[in-house]
């Protein structure tokens, strides 16, 4: 269900005509969009369309070669190190692999930002970690090492670490990739729950379009590094572009005679 989003205030993320490159290869270009406080904003597209690279730019891990990206009011490309550190304390991020530190157990991973940026006593830190674990349905696993976790647990522990500092904004890279449909649906529900309970703005990239349309307030569709569509889930579902409809799985597969012949020969051979 769409959430009431305040677009009157200045956006948490403002991307203006941004182009990103790596090794001279353009990853995406001419991207302009805003993300407002309280939104769940999805960036969807096929594999290799530049979604994860875009997220790295939003986190300040890469800099655009053209255009601007302002996150929480600061231009990341021109920000000084101290400004970047201040911004990063106000945002959380999860990576596709989870990116938990292998040498630390679940509790140590989650409390790492708290230990570095606050002077809370260990008992308070422990309580805060416990609360976040409960919120993400992870009670009782705080002593496990990352290698002992399932894919779904890994993603949720990573999410717990991302929200431990109560950030204003969380960025998630493919939060449901590699998960079975039940775990993926649970994680979708968790994202909505996090937004509602912690009042956090959520930006996530995903190739699971249907799941993104179910939970996002607005969806950005990327194709070949360019913005193909931007709008509410209803607007995206009704979008006339064939690429968008193909992404939604509504267009029949393009006819490819050589593939059809091959399949026919295989089928005949089986008989």
């Amino acid at each position: 269900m769409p959430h009431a989003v305040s677009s009157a205030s200045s956006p948490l993320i403002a991307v203006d005509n941004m182009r990103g490159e790596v090794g001279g290869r353009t990853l995406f270009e001419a991207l302009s969009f805003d993300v407002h406080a309280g939104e769940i904003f999805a960036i969807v597209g096929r594999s290799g369309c530049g979604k994860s690279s875009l997220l790295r730019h939003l986190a300040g891990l890469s800099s655009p070669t053209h255009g601007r990206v302002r996150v929480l009011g600061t231009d990341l490309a021109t920000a000084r190190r101290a400004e970047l550190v201040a911004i990063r304390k106000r945002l959380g991020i999860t990576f596709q692999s989870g990116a938990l530190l292998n040498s630390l157990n679940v509790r140590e991973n989650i409390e790492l930002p708290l230990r570095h940026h606050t002077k809370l006593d260990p008992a308070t830190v422990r309580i805060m970690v416990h609360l976040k674990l409960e919120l993400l349905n992870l009670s009782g696993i705080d002593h496990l090492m990352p290698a002992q976790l399932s894919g779904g647990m890994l993603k949720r522990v990573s999410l717990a670490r991302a929200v431990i500092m109560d950030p204003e904004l969380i960025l998630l890279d493919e939060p449901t990739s590699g998960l079975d449909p039940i775990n993926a649906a649970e994680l979708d529900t968790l994202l909505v729950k996090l937004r509602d309970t912690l009042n956090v703005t959520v930006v996530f990239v995903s190739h699971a379009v249907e799941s993104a349309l179910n939970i996002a307030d607005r969806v950005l569709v990327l194709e070949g590094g360019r913005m193909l569509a931007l709008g509410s889930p209803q607007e995206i579902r009704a979008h006339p572009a064939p690429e968008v409809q193909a992404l939604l799985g509504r267009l029949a597969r393009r006819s490819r005679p050589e593939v059809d012949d091959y399949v026919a020969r295989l089928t005949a051979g089986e008989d």
Partner: protein
Amino acid sequence: MSRPAPVLILFLRAGGSYVLLLLRVIATLGRSRGQFTALLAQLHRIGARSLPVIAVAGVFTGMVIAVQFFDTLVRFGSRGLLGTAVGLSLIRELGPVLTALITIGRAGSASCAEMAIMRTDQQIDAIECMAIDPYAYLLAPRLLAFLIALPLLTAIFEVFGVCGGLAVAVASFGESPTLTLANMADGVLTRDLLMSLFKSGVFGLLIGWLCLGKGYFSAGQSGAEGVSRTTTDAVVVASLAVLFTDYVLTALLR
């Protein structure tokens, strides 16, 4: 005017990155929470866990030197110099160099692989995104641990080496233990001991710097093959750097 060769630019860029890495690590020393605890953990990992292999290598090296020198010294009628020869060889040259090479193989390669895996797995990106300085959190304790552990390991290598040499001199060649030890004490000067510790400190810094840097800058070398290639490169580069630096230091400080 022709453009500089790309390989030269790449070399300068890589060299600049390594210099900046070292400067940034030095700048963060003592400025991150938990750095001392992390340093102790790394000293245990790099230093304490290397003790058995260092001790065994030291004993055998001392034994081999004693055997080799004994035959030569007997030929020249100078068997009384066996203790001095064993002591000087171990402390001036073989102790620092062999300890450094063993540490590269055991701890340098492991640290490089750890950094490379953390880079590939986006763990370093995650640390940056948590507003934690990876130079302070990851690199500084490890580099400092190499710097501190190498002289200590070298001293232990030399002690075990002397014991090995002494054991062979006494058991195989019938030398007097007191006389052999006295010869060692006479032949080896304080300057030799300090030189040995100074060399091993420099080697520790080199090993940590090159192995950690190689792993840290390994972006794009993804997968098991990439990590393996990065680690092999680090071992080769660090070993050659140690041998080259050993020559330079020996020539300058003799």
